């Protein structure tokens, strides 16, 4: 892959990753959040594929295909099934309203640019220059996890955080050992399975999946 095309493709992929994260903060329709998560997974797969093509690592490209299947198809489908079973399609009022969330997202982006400056300076390259964006995605996912009430959007937040972590890993190292990535993906899959079961249990007990109802369990 030639130099100019590589940088453009990389920037596109990272931009899509970030945009999907920010939009997830804005939308309150659960179906839309799941779709955004699928888009983000595809963007992550594209990012890994671009890196792999640039480096010429066949294994990394194969890994990108795996990521595409898991994060753009399997996990969104599972989330969708959980949503349909749950019967609640809209996020209730989040703890922080949408406007403030977007401002917070901007601040988090500033923070991650400030924090990762030494990393970028260490080895300036198109890949490392994208690291702040990936860290922003991590923080955005965390923010979604903290501020949303529905169990489903929290799971989506958790998974977006993990997308960000994977992106940071690939951008900084260009080539995570295959076994590590495999273990991480398995972890994520397992976590989602557990969360899905938990969500349905919470719904069975409380008739709703608003996590703040769990406070009743506190003695």
């Amino acid at each position, binding site marked *: 892959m030639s130099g100019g095309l590589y940088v453009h493709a990389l920037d596109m992929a990272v931009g899509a990753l970030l945009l999907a994260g920010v939009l997830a903060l804005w939308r309150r329709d659960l179906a839309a959040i799941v779709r955004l998560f699928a888009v983000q997974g595809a963007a992550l797969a594209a990012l890994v594929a671009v890196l792999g093509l640039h480096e010429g690592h066949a294994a990394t490209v194969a890994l990108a295909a795996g990521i595409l299947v898991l994060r753009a198809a399997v996990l969104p489908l599972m989330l969708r099934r959980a949503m349909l079973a749950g019967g609640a399609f809209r996020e209730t009022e989040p703890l922080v309203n949408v406007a403030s969330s977007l401002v917070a997202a901007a601040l988090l982006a500033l923070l991650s640019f400030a924090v990762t400056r030494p990393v970028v300076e260490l080895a300036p390259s198109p890949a490392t220059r994208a690291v702040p964006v990936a860290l922003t995605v991590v923080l955005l996912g965390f923010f979604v996890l903290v501020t949303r009430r529905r169990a489903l959007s929290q799971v989506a937040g958790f998974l977006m955080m993990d997308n960000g972590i994977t992106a940071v890993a690939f951008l900084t190292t260009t080539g995570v050992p295959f076994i590590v990535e495999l273990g991480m993906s398995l972890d994520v899959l397992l976590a989602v399975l557990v969360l899905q079961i938990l969500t349905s249990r919470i719904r069975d007990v409380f008739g709703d999946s608003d996590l703040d109802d*769990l406070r009743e369990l506190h003695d």
Partner: protein
Amino acid sequence: MTNPTGAAFCAALALGLLAAAAAALPRRVRPAAVGGATAAAGAAAVAAGLSAMAGRPWSAWLPDLLPLAGVRLAVDPLGGLFIAVTGAVAVCAAVYAAGYSRPGRDGPDAGHGLDGGHGLDGRAVQAMLPLFVLAMLLVPAAASVTTFLLAWELMAITSLLLVVAEHRRRASVGEAGLWYAVMTHLGLVAILAGLAGFAAASHGESFDRLREAADGLPPAVRSAVFVATLAGFASKAGIVPLHVWLPRAHPEAPSHVSALMSAAMVNMGVYGIVRVGLDLLGGGPAWWWLIVLAAGAVSALYGILQAVVATDLKRLLAYSTCENMGLVLVGVGAAGLLSVSGARTMAALALTAAMLHVVNHAGFKTLLFLAAGSVLRATGTRDLDALGGLRSPMPATTALFGVGALMASALPPGSAFVSEWLLLQSLVHALPEGGTVAAVTMPVAVAVVALSAGLAIAAFTKAFGVGFLARPRGAGAERAHESPPAMIAGMVLAAAGCVVAALAPGLIADGLSRAVGVAAAVAGPAADPVTGPVVLRPAGMPSTMSPLLITVALLVAAVVLIGVLRAAAAGRARRRARPWDCGAGPASARMEYTATSFAEPLVRVFDDVLAPDTDLDVTPVEESAYLIDSVRYRTEVADRVEHRLYRPVLAAARWTGRAARPLANGSVHRYVGYGFYAFTAMLIVLAVTR
């Protein structure tokens, strides 16, 4: 694999895994299969250890077994000594366990198999036993920090699961398990911190790399590593004030597990101190060894005092473990101290004495715990006050416990005598060579060793005399019956080992000097520290001693004495009479010495140290102050260190927990939010400070 050490060690590991797999067999054959395979693993380990001590070290590097670090194993003479001891204890305990784990068909202990498959012959408990032995074999064989810590943690977890094996039968087991779990993991944290710091400072984690780098490290790092690892290892060895788990966990564990823990696992603490302090770090300043010596001396005295006043048979043995590990640390500390002042021959002798005491203690403590388990199984109680009169229903157990008690008290035919004699020799003769510090500490150490040896005799006289002789004082003791043959076989093996160690300690003198030679700080003298198969000759001093000749002389004297008495009595007529009872009627079991009354004079003497809690309730007859209706006397000697040192810490922890409760209000968002805010705050700090 032409190396015999490696072949035997690998065979031990394979047999141990086989034994763990045998736990899947049906319940009927399970105890025998697991016990047999574990005993075979132990025997192979003894062969491996002895072969390493004979000067055939072995090492292996398995890079693929563990991601990132790999597994490094090396069996040198020092590790071989501990492997051999562990293997020997495992043989006795495993043979014994084959009988002990079976559900008792009669007697008060018959409930073994009835509590829903959770008895000692349950699948999980049976699988843990060989895994525990395996972990204890791997600890002295580990040759890198990760391998060592992994084996150490495996040892901690398997032993913890074995301690709580009987948690459904007694509530106190759970509490003991909790204490043990907390203490052993705090110890692990200390060891982890110390060794990780050591590895980071030396840029490598194999023991060879650490040994090379140790000399170049700054003194502060060396001291931090030593103090951190010492704290962790001392807590495993049951050294006061980190001993609190030991007198709880050892009595509550099933008896063969008590034997394994008390005779083999606590040794790993000593191994760690010797390996890190004297080998990897290659010795250090005098204050390190003064701490070791002082901790050893305190624990020897405190342990034996608590043992003297204990009324629980297994608790008594557990405190005796504290005492013996204390004596071993006195030897190790003296060795380190003497090596600082350049008296290497003496240092090697002190370390040899300590290692010999490890071997001897393992022998007699295995025997004593196994015999105590036999009593517990037969009578259902560990309370010495309720025992007694076991000689005729349990002749074999009584005789074997007697042998163990004799070996444990530092009197001539016993094995503890040999090692304590050597220890005293090294301490006494260290004076001219040791410098000022030694001139002050050694006499104190000699006094401590002598006093604890004396009190040990009182403790074991009490355990044997009050526990086994006279008449039964409780219902359990009246119903006692002899244990099954497998248990007796295990005890006989242990007793045979003790007798060999007591009569011919010179047999392992060569191996011991090779083991001591591994410790870089004390290695160097050309002559072996102790020589001679029959007559022990400590190097560099005029004294010699032969346990075999002393025993023969004692036997001859005893035979002559008995012969003379028989001859003198032969001429007179025999008459049967009741013992003198002040005219109060036939002497009953209530008039016997109990454990409490036997220890009472000593409790008075050491009143200030033990601080017993005594209650005297006198109830007079109604309307009369002078006629007494009943008197109740109750005395209890609690562990004072635990009360003074641990209760306040526990109270503080509980208070902090309660004070922090408002932080956790049940909202999941808040919990996740804590993580988010802490993470962002950390990033902001990072962004501002860089």
